[in-house]
């Protein structure tokens, strides 16, 4: 099939950007969306035009590097699919496709389709972990974890940190990302000692960088891992509870 791509080009964070139109010819339906960009780039290089910068790595939907807006949809029209796993059989000959970077003020643009998502790392730094130094762990089977709990923690832990939730949110909120990590750790027995500190700290760090959630719900449909917005309800509950819990914990609470 032959396609027309309208791609956002911008040479740097402060440069003026614009759409450029490129033709992608002889595209096979077995190709992934990123392979189409590869084909376009090879053609651009041949013509002496700088190739389109886009983020990608594992190309099997797990590293979370890739992600672009395709016709206004984060990761395009595939359900529960990252851009790298979006195959061209979902498109048809003659289609015109608009390709843009993630659109969110908290993800400043670096070049073309590449944005800076380091605000996610700041959220994890603020409490997205269980403090256990190497060597101090107890025997793994000492604490049984009910399978349903472990499964629910895993459902949330599947988040790949791609940023589609933020890009698809009209408020540019990172609630799905933050809540997924919080749910993963707050559900597990190992995560209990830091639960209330974590809840307060992660939410407040999130608020520093991102917009607020208005339960629009677009994020869960954009999420390539299908993480449900139920985790956001859980986060809100734990955040609220953390207000009183942290006060009660007194000296063990947040230092801030």
């Amino acid at each position, binding site marked *: 099939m032959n396609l027309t791509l309208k791609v956002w080009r911008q*040479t740097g964070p402060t440069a003026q950007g614009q759409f450029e139109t490129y033709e992608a010819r002889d595209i096979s339906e077995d190709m992934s969306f990123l392979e189409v960009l590869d084909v376009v780039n090879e053609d651009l290089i041949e013509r002496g035009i700088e190739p389109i910068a886009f983020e990608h790595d594992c190309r099997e939907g797990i590293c979370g590097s890739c992600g672009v807006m395709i016709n206004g949809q984060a990761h395009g029209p595939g359900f529960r699919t990252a851009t790298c796993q979006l195959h061209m059989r979902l498109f048809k000959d003659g289609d015109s496709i608009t390709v843009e970077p993630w659109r969110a003020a908290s993800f400043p643009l670096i070049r073309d389709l590449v944005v800076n998502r380091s605000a996610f790392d700041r959220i994890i730094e603020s409490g997205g972990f269980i403090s256990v*130094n*190497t060597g101090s762990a107890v025997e793994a089977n000492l604490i049984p974890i009910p399978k349903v709990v472990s499964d629910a923690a895993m459902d949330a832990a599947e988040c790949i940190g791609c940023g589609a939730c933020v890009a698809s949110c009209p408020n540019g909120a990172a609630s799905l990302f933050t809540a997924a990590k919080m749910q993963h750790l707050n559900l597990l027995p190992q995560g209990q000692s830091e639960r209330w500190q974590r809840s307060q700290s992660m939410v407040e760090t999130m608020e520093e960088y991102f917009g607020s959630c208005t339960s629009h719900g677009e994020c869960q449909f954009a999420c390539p891992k299908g993480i449900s917005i139920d985790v956001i309800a859980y986060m809100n509950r734990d955040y609220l509870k953390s207000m009183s819990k942290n006060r009660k914990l007194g000296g063990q609470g947040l230092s801030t």
Partner: protein
Amino acid sequence: MELKSAVPEGAIEELWDGHRFNMRLVNPANKRRFNVIVVGTGLAGASAAASLAELGYGVTVFSYHDSPRRAHSIAAQGGINAAKNYQNDGDSVFRLFYDTVKGGDFRSREANVYRLAQLSVNIIDQCVAQGVPFAREYGGQLENRSFGGVQVSRTFYARGQTGQQLLLGAYQALMRQVAAGAVTLYPRTEMLDLVTVDGRAVGVTVRDLQTGEISSHSAHAVILATGGYGNVYYLSTNAKKSNATAAWRAHKKGAAFANPCFTQIHPTCIPASGEHQSKLTLMSESLRNDGRIWVPKDQNDARSPADIPEAERDYYLERQYPAYGNLVPRDVASRAAKRQVDNGRGVGPLKNGVYLDFGSAIDRLGQPEIEERYGNLFEMYDRITGEDPYETPMRIYPATHYTMGGLWVDYNLMSSIPGLFVGGEANFSDHGANRLGASALMQGLADGYFVLPNTVSDYLAGLLGQGAVGTDHAAFRESRAEVEDQTKRYLSNQGTHSVDYFHKALGHIVWEKIGMERTATGLQEAMRDISSLREDFRRDVRVLGSGESLNDSLEKAGRVADFFDLAELIARDGLHREESCGGHFRVEHQTEDGEAARDDENFSYVAAWEWQGEGKPQLLNKEPLEFEHVHPAQRSYK
């Protein structure tokens, strides 16, 4: 070069404990005075950096990704081995050790492998404490499954995303140290050279991928945890950015490169669908627990799989290897698949695969149970091929997956350059000539959480009172100049073909001639072809844009240049190793029934190649291997 394995004396069960007692310590107040550089944030790098920072050392971490969480360990699917014996099925530290040495076809160092098996149990404890949501039984206990090359169930897993969960655990531990100020993290920064002074590793030269700035960083010790070199094949299951540049630049500064020809071709990947293919996707080996591999008995059978009756199917692994069946080790399964396809029994539109069929497992266990075990893998397969594996068998074919070879290290994981340590897939240490499934995650985390923090401390103890070498030292200046020069050379080359064009061509040579089966003539041809293609590359590669902003082609050019040199060394190593073992199959050396014929008398050693300068062949050094506990025998899985 003298290769001292530094394996302590004593009974193998007590080596590591004894060694830990004998190693020097650094007191807490002095730890602050030391700085360690860690390059790479996969399982080995992130876990080492976090653990060293917890101990109190200053740690500087470099990653070419935008976040440490993207490292390719994240893509490991199936699981991680540990000798917990939770299943009461006869497992033990000794059995995991035995299986790994045997699985590696007797080309690994016994002492290292024993330590790995011992530490495996601590890894599971550590990861569970971090909140890794491993699969569990209804009673809340950890669940296990089985993997190729073993007869016990010792693999722990988190659905089909074990690598992701383990990496997130290590990444979170790392970010906790970043928040504590103990780790300085440089994302989007690529190491382009190792700096040595008086033969010791004292720092690195790096390039900021966003601004193009080239800078120097000094430290008391450097740890490379930069992964394997599978992308030398162009098409592999590795991530697109995975490369050998950090390891190769260290090699050029004097670190010996060991057993480069030991590369692993994984039997269960989705076959290529055409010329546009940019990478291959692995389907976890765990699928072989319940899937049955077959091809039609007749060549060129064009019927759909459902129309081929049982009697006309050849379940060739079950037929050839009744004891292990579909769970034979990777090297054996890969070669068997290649032979079926070469014999015209391949399936699929390009006739380049074999079937992996879940029909009987679905009948036996029901679809919900199969979904529970492999749901995400089936979904991924469906998405890529447009075929539903619950209805029609998967098509699979071998693809490059892992490299057992890597920088030579001693028992302390220190390379032949003092002060340069190497962890994870980047070193050669534990898997011999073939790695067993679910052992890469185990090794990466054993190295990072438990080995390096101890052995690096011992090295640093010897440097007490010495400051780090300043980055104004001539060695740093020269290194920066060299890196800058290389960057400019690519940008001013005015060639006609893209970097990918050359990478694909190189990959084609390596796959055809240094792939699953190798011959002396093929390897010689490969060396000639690689050398002439490298000339073309240098003359004709086109890198557009500038060195002052994000430039993917420029990054790739440097990496592909190193792949050329490395490919040549793989061929040279493969040519010299006149035997077949593990992933290295020389057609000239096989048994009557087509299995690998090892030559223990002449090749029971680690081949460690020493850089001799640009354009000169590397010098071969040998570290003899001795087997006191697992006696070399022909591996039999029949």
